[in-house]
C-alpha cells in the first residue's frame, strides 16, 4: 500500500483526521462519504479488505485531484466514479486471486451466517453472485444514483447496452425472489 500524503483524509486507514486548515471542510466531506464509498467498493470487489484498499487509494487520488472538484455538492458521484475506476485499475494491475464465490457463499450460508429475513439474505448473495457486467451497473444505479446515460458514459457502453444489462440483472434477481423470469426482450449481448 502506498504512503499517503500527510494531512490527506487517508493518512490512516479508517482514521478520522482533525478538521483543520483550509482543506478542513473538504476533509470532512470526504470522510463523511467513506461509509458509502466502502459499501460501493465492497459490492464491486466482493471482499471487504480489498474494498478498504480501493477506497484508500481512491481517496488518495481524490485528494490529489481535489482542485478538480469545483462543486462540493457533486462530490458523491465524483468520488464514486473514482472508486469504480480504482476498482477497475486494481484488476488491471494485478490479477486478483479468484475465489469461487459459489463455494464461499455455500460455506457461509450455514446457520451461523443466517440472519432474520432470509429473503433479503438470499437476495444479497444473489447480487454478489451476479457477474460484474450486471452487478456494476446495478450498483451504480441503485447505490450510486447514476442515470442510465451516466452509467453508459462511465462504462463506455451505449445506453441500450446499459438498459439491457440492468434488465437482465433484475430478471435474474426476480427468480431468486420467487417471481417468474420475464422473457428476455433485450437486444442480444454475449454475456452470461
Amino acid at each position, binding site marked *: 500500500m502506498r504512503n499517503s500524503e500527510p494531512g490527506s483524509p487517508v493518512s490512516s486507514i479508517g482514521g478520522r483526521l482533525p478538521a483543520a486548515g483550509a482543506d478542513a471542510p473538504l476533509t470532512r466531506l470526504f470522510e463523511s462519504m467513506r461509509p458509502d464509498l466502502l459499501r460501493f467498493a465492497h459490492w464491486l470487489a*466482493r*471482499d*471487504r479488505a480489498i474494498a478498504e484498499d480501493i477506497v484508500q487509494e481512491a481517496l488518495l487520488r481524490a485528494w490529489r485531484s481535489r482542485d478538480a472538484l469545483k462543486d462540493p455538492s457533486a462530490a458523491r458521484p465524483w468520488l464514486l466514479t473514482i472508486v469504480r475506476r480504482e476498482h477497475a485499475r486494481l484488476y488491471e494491475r494485478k490479477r486478483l486471486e479468484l475465489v469461487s*464465490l459459489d463455494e464461499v*457463499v455455500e460455506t457461509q450460508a450455514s446457520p451461523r451466517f443466517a440472519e432474520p429475513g432470509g429473503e433479503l*439474505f438470499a*437476495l444479497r448473495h444473489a447480487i454478489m453472485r451476479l457477474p460484474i457486467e450486471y452487478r456494476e451497473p446495478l450498483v451504480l444505479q441503485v447505490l450510486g444514483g447514476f442515470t*442510465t446515460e451516466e452509467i453508459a458514459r462511465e462504462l463506455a457502453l451505449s445506453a441500450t447496452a446499459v*438498459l439491457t444489462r440492468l434488465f437482465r440483472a*433484475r430478471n435474474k434477481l426476480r427468480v431468486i425472489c420467487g417471481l417468474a423470469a420475464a422473457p428476455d426482450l433485450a437486444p442480444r449481448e454475449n454475456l452470461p
Partner: protein
Amino acid sequence: MTCDEARLLIGADPGAATTALEEHLATCAACARFRDEMRSLDADIRRALERPPDIARPRSDRQPPRWRQWALAASVVLATLAVLGVWLLRPSDTLAREVVAHVQGEPDSWLATQHVSAQGITQALHGAGVALEITSDKIMYAQSCWFRGHYVPHLVIQTARGPATVLILRHEQPRARRAFHEAGMSGVIVPAEQGSIAVLTRGAGDLDDLAGQMQHDVHWLADAH
C-alpha cells in the same frame, strides 16, 4: 410504446416514469402488474445493497483448492526424492570427493584430441606398479599425478560415449563399489586386485563397463613402491 419496450424499460429502471410508459401502462394491466412487481423487487434490492454480505473469509481460513493440495503433496514428494537422490549419489567418502576435485583441477585433460604415445603412457605408469593391456590409440591423456601421497596414473580414455577419466589407485582399497555424482560428473570407484580404479565421466553415464574393462586390463606389478 409496445409491451416489450415497456418491460425492458421497467426491468432496467422500475422507477422510470416517462409519458409514453405511463400511457402504455394505463391501457395494459399486465405491464402495470409487472411494474408493481419490479418496484417491489427494487425496494428489496435497495435494502439488500445497504449492507453487503460479509462473505470475505479470513485469508488464513481459506481452504486452498484441491489441485493446490495435490500440487503441494507432489512438490513435497519431489523434494524428498531430490534430497534422497542427492544423498544416494553423493560422494560416499572423501576418496570420491578428492577424485572429483583432482579431475576438476585438470580440466584440459578432457580436451585432448590426439592419442598419447606409448612412451607417454609408460611415463604415466612409471612408479605406480601397474601395466596396461589397453591399446594406446584409445588413450588421449596420460599423466602421473600426485594423489594422496602417491603418484598415480591419470588417464583419459576415449570411449564410444566420449572421454572418461581413469585413476589407478594402488594404495586405495575400498571394500565395495562406490558410485557418486558430483560437480556435473558421474563416477564409480571399484575395488581391484591390489587397490582400486576410479572412473569418471562428465554428465551421467554407465561406467561399469569401462570400470570392468579396466579391472581386466590393469596388471598389478609385484615390484611397486
